């Protein structure tokens, strides 16, 4: 059973990293999302 549980922990870590990858890539290539909103607000003023 130890093998099974260790295997599953690795699975979950792997899935967590994989699911976060698109968001990380969006952040790296586009910068923070919120800055744009602030800019928009300033523009509208």
């Amino acid at each position: 059973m130890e093998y099974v549980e260790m295997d599953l922990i690795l699975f979950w870590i792997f899935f967590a990293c994989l699911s976060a990858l698109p968001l990380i890539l969006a952040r790296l290539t586009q910068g923070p999302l919120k800055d744009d909103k602030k800019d928009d607000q300033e523009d509208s003023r």
Partner: protein
Amino acid sequence: MNVYVLILAIYLGVLTYIGWRASKQVQDDDDWAVAGRSLGVWETAASVFVTVLSAVSFIGYMGYYYQHGWAGWWNWAGTLVATALFAGFFAARLRKFGGVTLSDYLDVRYGRTHGLLAAVLILFSTVLFTMAQLVGSASIIEAATGIPSWLCVVIIGLVFLVYTVIGGMVSVAWTSSLTSILILGGTFALMFSVLSEVGGFSALHGELYHIDPALLDPFKDGEIGLGLAMSWVVTWGIGNFGLPQIVTRFNSAKDEKTASYSQGVAGLLFILFYLPLMLIGLGMRVLYPGIENTDMVAPTAIMELVHPVLGGIVLAAILGAAVSTASSILLQAGTVATRDIYQKFINPEAPSSKVLSMSKATTFAVGIIAIGLSLMNSSTVLAIQANMVGILGSMLAMSVIIGFTWKRSNSQGGMAGMIVGIVTAVIWYALGQPFGWMPILPSIFTSSIANIVVSLATPPPSQEVQDIFFENNTR
């Protein structure tokens, strides 16, 4: 009245109401086709999420996990790869280009013939894809409620046809948001029911280990080989770039950053859907180990394990996955036929009001044809549609990827890549899919090679085209 029928009727009623409300927001053809390019991160993410998911995602995939255990995860790994590629690069570039359809892109990047060729194939495929969703969802509802399949096809078909025609992309975006919540809620509720029946997460894996330790192995102890695993990853990781209903979703986002971030959110939505779905499939393997037809795993879980109200909600989620995909596809039919064929080749001066009414009329006609074909239930048509994803992906995916990443790719190379891609796919089918590889896998290699070799042997694309896509890539 059957509880399932009541909940499904309420859901269909809500969709129709949303379509009616959305129709009030539609002022011109841009509102209809791309929601006025105004969608935020969540709406764009939700529309991609429900477009990718279908009735097959629920029924077929749950059965696949039941059969193969954790190794089944390879069939959605490619979706995450595509999502990461869109988030990191392509979503922003597609949005910045600023077209409406996939043919728009091929037209500007490679030439009018490329755009027209793609438009014709896309138009043809929309009928088949819509039909697949109708037939799939109708058979599930027939199994659960006893309503004849033909009646389900007519009712479901008319509901999504009406809300897509009157509300266009605005309608698709709003219904997608609602359906995403329904899908995630339904899947999680079913997962908790199954896990509580099994005795929890650890008990589930302990039982699976006793049934067959290979069910916990990422490759099912060698049964799912690297070739098949990569075939899944490439089919969806690259093939999604050839599906117009997905790549055009970014054109509705309000800007490039929104398009890119929407894919970050979509990645989370996918994992929040697929992991519970896997756990349901695995739990069902423990609870009902003798199900031979794996397509019956999902209906068994719904009808045997949960309260009818919850079962009805899960059924509505499955129906939602099907109609959302169908409406996204149907929207393509209207925009492609009107903008890529009528407006570009027949009447370039057509006013916005004329384009809008033609788009609606075409969408309605394609929807009616799809409903009619679904009622015929022809095995030949079903066989063609089952292979259509591979054919579209084989022809178009590398044209999108290479076109955005390699400046030197030109019109001749693009055409060579498209033709070689589709020919390879057809030959691969005819050969009976050697090594168990799906046709898109060899097609990606052959179409890339054809695109590169022919492009290098012919003059580079014009400076104007290079500027649009690689310097100041706005239109």
